[in-house]
């Protein structure tokens, strides 16, 4: 908490942070996914409405830094109107590039966003359609692996921290 240098965010990131698109829980959601966790300080929840393998609607909720919010928001814009197969092709650096470049320490935000997307697509095929297309890779992508690693790591670290309630305010 001592003097932190403000991060060199691009104007695009700041814009998506200030005016994010597609925010909120979705009413008639086809599938939703969560990546990251509150303990990570980094969490994205993605909501998709899918019709005939097409993503017709995508919204998000985000608990995390400005880069996290911007990455999730721009992702929803990138996938709307795409087929699931097309959306699957999106990589974390596509998001970083579209955001005008993220500082390296923030790459994990775009990785998390793609992790959430891929998790949603897999869940859709496994649990909603109950049949998995041939093009869907059986092996986990880098983004999915890294997302899981981050979640597992924080679980392990978290279990060592004693929990406390602290003095709370009402309202």
């Amino acid at each position: 908490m001592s003097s932190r240098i403000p991060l060199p965010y691009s104007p695009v990131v700041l814009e998506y942070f200030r005016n994010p698109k597609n925010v909120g829980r979705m009413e008639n959601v086809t599938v939703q996914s969560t990546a990251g966790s509150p303990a990570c300080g980094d969490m994205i929840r993605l909501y998709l409405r899918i019709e005939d393998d097409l993503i017709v609607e995508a919204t998000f909720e985000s608990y995390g830094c400005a880069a996290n919010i911007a990455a999730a928001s721009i992702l929803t814009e990138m996938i709307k109107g795409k087929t699931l197969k097309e959306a699957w092709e999106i990589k974390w650096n596509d998001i970083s590039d579209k955001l005008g470049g993220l500082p390296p320490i923030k790459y994990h935000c775009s990785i998390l966003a793609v992790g959430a997307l891929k998790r949603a697509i897999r869940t859709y095929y496994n649990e909603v359609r109950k049949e998995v297309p041939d093009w869907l890779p059986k092996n986990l992508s880098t983004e999915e692996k890294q997302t899981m690693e981050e979640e597992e790591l924080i679980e392990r670290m978290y279990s060592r921290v004693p929990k406390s309630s602290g003095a709370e305010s009402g309202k």
Partner: protein
Amino acid sequence: MSSIEHLSVIFPAQFVSELLGLEVIKVPVDEEGFVDPEVLKYYVDRDVGLVSIQLVNHEIGTIQKLRDLIEVVRDRNPDVVFHTDASDAYGRVRIDLRDLDVDMMTLSSHKIHGPRGVGVLYVRDDVRIEPILRGQLSVEKLWPGVELTPLIAGFRKAVELAFNNFEENVKYLTSLRDKLLNGILNSVSDVVLNGPSGDERAPDNVNVAFKYVEGEALTIELSGYGVYVSSGSACSSRFLEPSHVLLAIGREYELAHGSILFKVSRYHKGEDIDYALEVLPKAVDRLRTLSPLTPRRA
């Protein structure tokens, strides 16, 4: 040392300990950041050479009961050298070296609105330490080379200004602090105070955790309004680990990530606090709208 020392104390200690094969022991603190003398007692034995405990914590404002801690340490081992980092105490908390039995003390210029790049290490006459920087040193000098006169002059002026009206300054800071803290607790829901309250807390320190939002996002949001704060979240520092101070007082990771530090100074006016209180709920609310953790009213 305590588990909540400033990193400028922790990192050099760890470095030197690896270099020289010494052990660094971190004494735990309670929920408000206090080192209990009864607990400290158990950590001090004949093998301990140096104890370093800050007078005021830089993040949560805990004012340690240093006199009691020193007494306990000296009782267990009279040869121990006791150092205190008083950077966040100087100018806000009364320090009287005539009855505070420390061997060494660190002060920082920029913390009392002096120029950056200069500080003080007070070393009592009977303490012998090695200079860490080699160069043109005389017998008395611990720091080589030509003195940084402009910086020292600036520091001196800052000291003069800080102690000009010490008691009034402290009262004033305390009133700003309490106005801000009470304002926050009354206008924002789901807020947790980090650190002690009242007289046991530094007069210029407010540190609160806002549930459901992440600290760095909040600092950027507030900076858009012209309010500059810092956060304890991991995103603002090393990967994944939030502030070690907040973790040491037992804060869950989420609360640590959502914690914000506000510092008030004698240059702030009541209107500045009013303004901050006006924009803070808006900033928190906007981020809570985006967050999946915010409880929804059915």
